[in-house]
């Protein structure tokens, strides 16, 4: 008897320990980034583009990369949303009833979601060679759009599925076409769309492997789609690879900036999801 009690206690302790390690790793990571990044943080980092010879430790900040990242992630999310919203509506409203077909489509998007960003990057690079596009903002946006489409489709799909069937039936019974019904559904899931956008933006802004081949790198803020664009994760990667201590420090500060951006986005989407599920009928 005592052995069983002991076993129970032992595994309970083990579970608590594991939970502390798993959740604690979040604090460990964010703590490390803050601890190392804060001393190198200054206003120049976020307000100035790199001065000449940034890599060897001259002045300047990473404004080019911050803006570049927002361009790439923003462009990809907008483009992705334009493609994903119709797809999610199609899966849920137009082929409603044929369960096998819609479930297969869902699975394909789940699988697409699992494809690593380096493969999307390599594929984006192939597309660019095929169409003769050089490493540019446009190339980056194309590759990252491919990356975020599965996220957007699956999130929107989950959200649309929470809309009560009665609502759809009501609009249909009033003589609405499927598209008119879709409009009703879309209005209902507006907070859900925001969540999807935030999730996609958060993933897009932090990803390196997809923009590595496609977006290029530049010390200037891009002014057109055909110019190469620096991105924040890539800037961090390059800065950390520098032998100059000061530049490495800037890399830590850039990591801090990216961490803060991503944390804000994640917390916002968490709040939105909470709000959304509160209003769920």
């Amino acid at each position, binding site marked *: 008897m005592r052995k069983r009690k002991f076993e129970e206690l032992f595994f309970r302790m083990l579970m608590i320990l594991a939970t502390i390690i798993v959740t604690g790793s979040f604090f*460990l990571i964010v703590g490390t*980034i803050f601890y190392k990044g804060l001393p190198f943080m200054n206003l120049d980092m976020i307000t100035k583009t790199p001065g000449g010879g940034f890599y060897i430790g001259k002045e300047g900040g990473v404004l080019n990369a911050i803006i570049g990242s927002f361009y790439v992630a923003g462009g990809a999310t907008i483009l992705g949303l334009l493609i994903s919203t119709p*797809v999610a509506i199609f899966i849920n409203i137009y082929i409603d009833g044929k369960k096998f077909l819609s479930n297969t489509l869902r699975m394909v998007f789940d699988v697409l979601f699992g*494809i690593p960003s380096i493969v999307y990057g390599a594929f984006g690079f*192939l597309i660019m060679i095929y169409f003769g596009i050089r490493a540019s903002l446009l190339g980056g946006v194309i590759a990252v759009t491919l990356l975020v489409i599965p996220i957007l489709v699956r999130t929107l799909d989950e959200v649309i599925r929470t809309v009560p069937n009665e609502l759809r039936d009501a609009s249909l019974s009033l003589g609405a076409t499927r598209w008119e019904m879709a409009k009703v559904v879309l209005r209902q899931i507006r907070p859900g769309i925001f969540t999807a956008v935030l999730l996609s933006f958060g993933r897009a802004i932090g990803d390196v492997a997809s923009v590595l081949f496609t977006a290029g790198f530049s010390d200037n803020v891009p002014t057109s789609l055909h110019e190469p664009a620096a991105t924040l994760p890539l800037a961090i990667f390059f800065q950390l690879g520098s032998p100059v201590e000061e530049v490495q420090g800037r890399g830590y500060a850039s*990591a801090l900036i990216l*961490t803060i951006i991503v*944390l804000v986005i994640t917390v916002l989407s968490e709040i939105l999801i909470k709000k959304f599920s509160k209003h769920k009928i």
Partner: protein
Amino acid sequence: MQLRLLKDKILAKLMLVLTLASVSVILVIGIGLYYKSVPILHRLSWGELITSSVWKPLKGLFGFYPFIMGTLWVTGIAIIIALPLSLLTALYITEYASVNIKRLLAPFVNLLSGIPPVIFGVWGVLFIIPLIQNHIAPHFVEFSTGYSVLAGGIVLAVMIFPLIVSIISEVLRTIPQELKDASLSLGATQWETIKKVVLRKALPGIVAATVLAVSRAFGETIAVLMVCGNNAAVPHSVFDPGYPLPALIANNYGEMLSIPLYDSALMFAALLLFIIILLFNIISRVILTRLERKLAS
């Protein structure tokens, strides 16, 4: 009236096209990568490419064995660390924790999953590497820079925590309360119920989560690139540096167009990754969908 119906029809077609286009991306990627790997496959067979360990692009020798082994080492270490910890965490959150603790813990798992790969890499360089170099490796080997498959494995393990925890939690939640009650009412302790009822019932889901986590770890690029040491040799211990496939692709994109067949070799590496990950993903998704359906019926 006619106009409304027409609009509905046109939009239906448009949506169909968009859906087909985005689904077919999966095929187009496979075909595109294969097409680009044809030049190297012409010179060397699949078997030769995968089993040869000589990597001398300048001499036209492309052996992927060290990179495949690097990937396997890193992924293996990551799963060995992550699976038990994530499983115990998921069990704690679903079976033991009170509602308040659950509410407190759940956001951190999500926050962890939101952290970008490059940040994990920076953390690996700043925290894990010195830890291995100064505190772990000296107990086992004479010298290690810290840049090793162990570092890659640890960083990857932390990266896949949220994925495994959330999938296993989902699966655990589907296990009927009646089953647990039956076991508990027979006098089993909570742990005995978990061991003999919950885990047995959740096994397919745990396998699916593991397979999915393996495929995630396989494809992770930048974090392992930053901490693995990138030495094109087969690792023999956890303190040896390794060079996983994705890191190889990412690291050489700059020079790949200047050496003949190099771009083809790198695209072959991408194809290899794509095929393995595609298979793993399909397997785990099929298992998970089956589970879901079982629950629904």
